[in-house]
């Protein structure tokens, strides 16, 4: 009884937002993986499906709750020096790799300083601020920075800094190491087999360093290439978990109406997908701020959310997603107000020059969305010409600034310094990439604020800087923000504690259990 109590207590401590329940051990989780990942070696490949499966195999030092507050993973505690330059992590001391070798601080140093520096572009950008990474003893890792870097505590996440085994990779060619096919990590589940085109099977790690975890015996990832078949697989009971994006949006309503079916849009707080329309600030009517404001007032974003996204997600209020750190709603708000849009257009003397609208070529939902926006804009008198395009054409047109308005969505990675600034700072204006400051917005004050925000020390100081930046941006409307996208995870209600962190399913099924 005492053991059971302590087990319960520890599981509640570790997953702060878990409701009181009596977890059951055993059982197999049947989930869909879409598309089939190119590899399960998380240190080499960090795309969505890889992380979703391999997030069970590999771990990082921390995980994050839905407010992006750090929680223990491989590190059981940590300290940040008051000057913001030294980060000290204390690791669990009973951790073993899946092949039985002991895990130590050397693995962390090797992963962060050697392996991932070579293979992980996004992490490399953050490691620019790092002076040294050292392991004073087997359970302590110290990161020393050259200058303070605000988002630093947010980069110790599985997809950003997966810890890989030094004893397997040191001195080898990482990309061609045969061990990549049989990934070895420290996570709650071990790799068993991967039958290409059919399934990936993971098995409980009996030696996991936290007693009693994980609860599940197995995770069986079904590879089903067709969206309609995935929905049918759920209906017929072949799978019990449909991760966000694995069925088409218009099927979500029907599936969630099925008995014993739960749905959540949590678990995306860390990457915070935010959608907007690029507005070409360089030329055409969209170069006029009043026109851009009129676009904001003309769009009925609530309608799009309800009709196209099943009511999931939120209407974006600011360039920072509400789940990202330093979000503020103390900004210019744009409600659906066609009259105001017409006034602004009249004030600027809009002459009816048609604007070209580029939808995102990611399927029906986005196409319908573009049609709805086009109609919204035409109702206030803006002439819109929809341009048909495919993925390659879309990339090219955006990269070459050959558009007036264009749909997109980008990830924020929890911090404005990582995923927001890149869209608005003028040093990011360069043709050739669809992910930088594509709209061509220039504002020295914004450049300065984002530069300060990245290196300022202390939450309050950073909040002040980013609040000002958000206020300026929402007044200037460099792009037309649409929705904070809500991707629904659909699952049987007896699967509990499936999504417990801001990283969602990608954080692994460590805390999940199936009620009998």
């Amino acid at each position, binding site marked *: 009884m005492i053991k059971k109590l302590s087990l319960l207590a520890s599981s509640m401590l570790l997953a702060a937002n878990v409701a009181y329940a009596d977890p059951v051990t055993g059982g197999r989780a049947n989930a869909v993986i879409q598309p089939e990942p190119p590899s399960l070696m998380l240190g080499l490949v960090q795309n969505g499906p890889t992380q979703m499966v391999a997030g069970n195999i590999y771990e990082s030092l921390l995980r994050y709750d839905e407010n992006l507050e750090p929680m223990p993973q491989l590190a059981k505690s940590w300290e940040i020096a008051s000057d913001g330059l030294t980060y000290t992590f204390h690791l669990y001391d009973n951790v073993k790799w899946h092949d039985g070798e002991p895990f130590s601080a050397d693995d962390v140093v090797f992963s962060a300083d050697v392996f991932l520096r070579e293979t992980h572009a996004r992490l490399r950008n953050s490691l620019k601020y790092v002076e040294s990474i050292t392991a004073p003893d087997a359970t302590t890792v110290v990161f020393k920075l050259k200058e303070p870097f605000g988002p630093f505590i947010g980069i110790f996440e599985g997809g950003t800094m997966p810890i890989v085994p030094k004893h397997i990779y040191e001195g080898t060619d990482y990309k061609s190491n045969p061990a990549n096919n049989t990934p070895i990590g420290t996570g709650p589940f071990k790799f068993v087999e991967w039958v290409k085109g059919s399934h990936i099977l993971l098995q409980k790690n009996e030696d996991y360093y936290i007693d009693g975890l994980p609860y599940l015996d197995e995770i069986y990832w079904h590879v089903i290439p067709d969206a309609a078949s995935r929905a049918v697989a759920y209906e017929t009971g072949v799978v019990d978990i449909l991760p966000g994006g694995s069925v*088409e949006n218009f099927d979500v309503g029907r599936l969630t109406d099925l008995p014993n079916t739960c749905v959540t849009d949590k678990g995306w707080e860390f990457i915070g997908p935010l959608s907007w329309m690029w507005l070409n600030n360089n030329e055409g009517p969209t170069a006029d701020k009043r026109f851009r404001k009129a676009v904001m007032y003309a769009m009925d974003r609530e309608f799009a959310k309800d009709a196209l996204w099943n009511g999931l997600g939120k209407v974006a209020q600011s360039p920072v997603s509400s789940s990202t750190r330093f979000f503020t709603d103390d900004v210019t708000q744009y409600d659906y107000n066609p009259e105001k849009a017409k006034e602004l257009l009249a004030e600027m003397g809009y002459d009816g020059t048609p604007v070209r609208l580029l939808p995102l070529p990611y399927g029906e939902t986005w196409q319908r969305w573009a049609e709805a926006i086009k109609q919204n804009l035409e109702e206030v008198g803006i002439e819109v010409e*929809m*341009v*048909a395009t495919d993925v390659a054409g879309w990339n090219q047109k955006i990269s070459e600034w050959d558009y007036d308005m264009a749909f997109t969505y980008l990830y924020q990675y929890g911090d404005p310094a990582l995923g927001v600034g890149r869209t608005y700072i003028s040093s990011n204006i360069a043709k050739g990439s669809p992910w930088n400051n594509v709209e061509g917005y220039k504002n020295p004050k914004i450049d300065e604020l984002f530069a300060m925000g990245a290196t300022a020390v202390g939450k309050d100081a950073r909040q002040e800087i980013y609040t000002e930046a958000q206020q300026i941006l929402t007044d200037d409307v460099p792009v037309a923000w649409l929705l904070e996208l809500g991707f629904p995870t659909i699952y049987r209600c007896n699967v509990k504690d499936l999504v417990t962190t801001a990283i969602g399913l990608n954080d692994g099924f460590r805390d999940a259990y199936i009620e009998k």
Partner: protein
Amino acid sequence: MKDFWQRFKRNRGAVIGLIILALVILIAVFAPILFPQSPWKMVQRPFLPPFERDALLLGTDALGRNVMAGLAYGAQVSLIIGLISTVASLAIGIPLGAIAGYFGGFVDDALMRFTEFFQTVPNFALAIVLVAIFEPSVESIIGAIAIVSWPPVARLVRGEVLSLRSREYVEAAILSGQRNSTIILKQILPNTLSPIIVLASLMVATAILLESSLSFLGLGDPNLMSWGYMIGAARTVIRQAWWLSLFPGVAIILTVLSLNLIGEGLNDALNPRLSRKGK
């Protein structure tokens, strides 16, 4: 003319086809009066089933747009694209066929090999490639349909011209010193008109089908509400909203069927010697 109508009338199917087509044309012409609001306007809640509200007899689609308005404006798109692309392919096919048939020899060989080149490439695949390369728009769709549908015209005209070429009246015209172009345009082509008209009526039907197929695949002009687009957008929600696929589908079937019936009627009326007995 009276004879023609008498013979046409004898084919009851053709008359029915003519009535249906007239209705479709009327709807297309009066669409802006029947439905003053844009077919893209979101007027009601999404997925309103048909026959629930008098104003929205055929229900609404995924964005709450009026399906009936979409059908009316779609009729415009289908008919215009069908007509213009047919005229365009006639404009390619007739001169090529006439020149090949009239001059024969090397010219005939060269032009016919060229025609066969287009015939060997599957129609629809070529149309998809053309539209994809030139980006979907009304012009590129009309162009693509014209390019894939002219070879039969060229072959038909060539055959007709070839048989008329040796007629006495043509030889007389040559002897009287008329220029080749005059002979082709004034003496020969008017006599090939009947089979061309029959073929053209069927080509309009094929063009409407081609346009619908392209739109269904998402290669339609994104600024036009066409029947193919409506079905293409509806196929993903067919389990929730059958009416979104059914009504435009019926519209396509009726229009194409009516054109085929009319084509058959024209054939009977214009080629009395070929008309079947008992009718």
